[in-house]
Structure formats: C-alpha cells, structure tokens
C-alpha cells in the first residue's frame, strides 16, 4: 500500500507585471538585467479584490475537471495569506467547491517549503488510514504584502495557486522525507506588522533598504543576502540527507526540482551540489517566485514538456521562509 501524486493543475491571476513595467516605474532598473540575473520576465499579480483563497478555488476547479470531487476526503490548504484569522480558509473552500462535508480540512502556514510538507502530510494521512484522496492546494499572494515602491521584492515574487491530488495507490510513489526548521532566521523573511505580535501600524514610517527599495513594517521584508547565505549552507545538506534516506544517489535520479527562488541562486546551488544542467528544472520566466506553488507548477510544466515521464525518480527540495526546508523523492 502506498501513495502517489495523481493530478496537478495551477492557476495564475490575470494581471501581469512585466520587466518593462518595472523599468518604467524604477528608473535605475533594467529590464534586460532583471531577466538575465533573476530569470524573470513577468509575474502574475492578484487584483485588490482577489485573494489566495480565490486563486485556490480556481486551481482546485481546474484539477477537479478531471477528477470526481466526491472522492476527495481531505483538503489541505497551504498559504501565508489566508482570508481571515478565523475561520479556516479551507473550510470556506470546502463549501465553495461543494466537496462532501464528511471530510477533513485545515490550513497550514508555510511558504517555500510548503509543498514538500504538504506531501509529507498527505502521505501520513493516507498511510495512517485517516484519508484516501487528498486535495493539496498551495496558494500564495505575497504581492499583497509588498510595498509599491519595493522594487526588489516586486521583481521577484509572483502570485499563484497549484492544486495537487494525492491518492492511495498500490505501490509507494512518495519516498522518505527530510524536514528542517531553523527559527533563528525568522526575521530575514517576514511581514513584521499585522499579526498579533505587532499590530498593523497606520503611521508606519518608510524604510529605505539602502539600494532603493522602500517598505514599511506593514510590508514584506526579505534580506536577500542572508537568505542566500542560509541556502548555501542548508540546501546541499538537505540534498545529501534526502538521497541518503532514500538509499539513492544523484546519478540514480532522473530529475531534480528545487523551489524556484531566482535564477541566480538556483543556478549557484545546482553548480555547488553538482547536479547536471539537463537534470535540473530552472524556469520562473513567466511566473516569478510563487513561493509554495513553485514546485507543483514545475512538476506540471516538466511533465507537459516531457522533461519527466512516468517512472522517473525526481528529487524535490523546498527551502525558505521560516527558515523551513524539506526534501523528498517521488516516482512519477
């Protein structure tokens, strides 16, 4: 008895923010430089009246076009941008999707490591016979937290949702997990105000980060260099530990999908770890960094473009905000 990923679909909100738009807004920002360095040409942005829950709904509807929604007996929603503190957004989603009411549902708050954690949760729920067919949605809207004058973060992050179905299956297609947490880095990727530790501050002062990006403490803050330092130390270790736990080697793998953070960082990690280019997914050109949606979007794109096929062994590694990280190997 095992578990497998059976379907993935994703949804990108309609509004585009292109590099040319950014170049017009920020005079010293070059469209060409952005694309060459971070590998992003455009990102999709939610409207003012659109939330992560709306994106989750659209992604779920897409995946349920080819799947009987009455088979779903558990709903997992990974987001750091819920509609409310309470009630749970996935409860609202259950109703909007008209799923059965005799199912489990809850939100969990993770970012870039969210999809790998979601797989770990889904595998556990199925293996423990709590559920059989799980709808896992990873939906994020960082742009709602980003200051309009924060050219750095507006360049990097895109909004998106992915819906993944994980089912009970005869053979095990989802391998062993390596999960990690280091809260000492919590301040390096954070929205300081608006939660219960620091309330939203209507008089919050503008802060210049020293390289022309403006924000207030009500907005997303990311210390890029510090995050890069963290990934350089942590990611090679996660890879070797995940390979070890799954009794396999880089050579044995057919493909590798890391969280798509930005081209420069992802390419540096690839080179440092020694993953051949042809086995490594690297594409965020038209989506930007969509946080917990990057990995499922990458898997779907890799499948559609025949970069991976049935039977392939694929290493998945998510890492980022928290700090939180996770790795596993799946068989397509």
């Amino acid at each position, binding site marked *: 008895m095992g578990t497998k990923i059976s379907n993935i679909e994703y949804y990108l909100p309609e509004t585009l923010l292109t590099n040319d738009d950014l170049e017009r807004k920020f005079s010293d920002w070059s469209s060409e430089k952005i694309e060459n360095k971070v590998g992003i040409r455009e990102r999709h942005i939610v409207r003012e009246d659109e939330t992560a829950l709306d994106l989750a709904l659209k992604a779920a509807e897409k995946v349920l076009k080819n799947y009987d929604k009455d088979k779903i007996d558990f709903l997992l929603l990974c987001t750091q941008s819920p509609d409310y503190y309470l009630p749970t957004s996935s409860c609202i989603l259950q109703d909007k999707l008209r799923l059965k009411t005799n199912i489990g549902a809850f939100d969990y708050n993770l970012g870039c490591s969210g999809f790998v954690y979601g797989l770990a949760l889904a595998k556990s729920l199925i293996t423990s016979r709590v559920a059989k067919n799980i709808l896992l949605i990873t939906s994020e809207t960082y742009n709602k937290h980003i200051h309009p004058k924060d050219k750095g973060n507006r360049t990097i992050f895109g909004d998106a949702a992915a819906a993944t179905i994980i089912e009970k299956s005869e053979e095990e297609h989802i391998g062993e997990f390596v999960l990690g947490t280091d809260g000492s880095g919590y301040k390096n990727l954070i929205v300081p105000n608006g939660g219960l530790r620091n309330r939203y501050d209507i008089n919050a002062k503008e802060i210049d980060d020293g390289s022309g990006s403006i924000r207030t403490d009500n907005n997303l803050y990311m210390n890029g260099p510090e995050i890069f330092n963290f990934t*350089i130390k942590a990611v090679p270790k996660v890879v070797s530990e995940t390979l070890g736990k799954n009794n396999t080697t880089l050579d044995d793998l057919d493909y590798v999908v890391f969280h798509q953070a930005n081209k420069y960082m992802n390419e*540096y990690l690839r080179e440092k770890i020694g993953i051949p280019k042809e086995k490594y997914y690297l594409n965020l050109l038209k989506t930007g960094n969509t946080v917990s949606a990057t990995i499922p979007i990458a898997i779907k794109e890799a499948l559609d473009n025949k970069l991976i096929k049935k039977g392939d062994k694929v290493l998945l590694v998510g890492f980022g905000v928290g700090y939180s990280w996770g790795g596993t190997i799946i068989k397509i």
Partner: protein
Amino acid sequence: MEKMKTEDFIKELKEALEIEDEDQEITLETNLKELEEYDSLSVLSIIAMIDKNFGKQIPSIDFIKITTIKSLIDLIGKEHFE
C-alpha cells in the same frame, strides 16, 4: 585552503560585478558601494564568489559595513590571501 592572490580576487570581483571595461581601474582602495555596477543583484554574485573561493558565508550585517575592496578582504580574513 590555498591562499588567493589579491589580483585574482579583484579579477573575480570584476566578473561578479559584471564590469566589462577591462581598462577600468579597480584597486584595493576602490569603494565598492560607489561603483555604478554595485546593486542588490551584484551582492548575490559577491556572496557566491566568496563561497566558491573561500567556503565562507559573510553575515549580511557585516556586509553593510563594507566600503573599499580592502575592507572586503579584511572581512573575509587576510589569512586567506597571499
């Protein structure tokens, strides 16, 4: 680890900053932050370059204090250089 020659370090730094002009004079006294090419993206390249050549991660809080290339070398540690 082998020690690095200062000239080689400056060469790698020029590459990391994408300074294409071969004749542009970069010395130990050059203030990194005043270079046209220095921005938040080039900081990533410098971090990568330091990791690749010295296996070290410089905390960003120390990075903020950097002025001249000499100050960067001091931060990495003079013992790594010839």
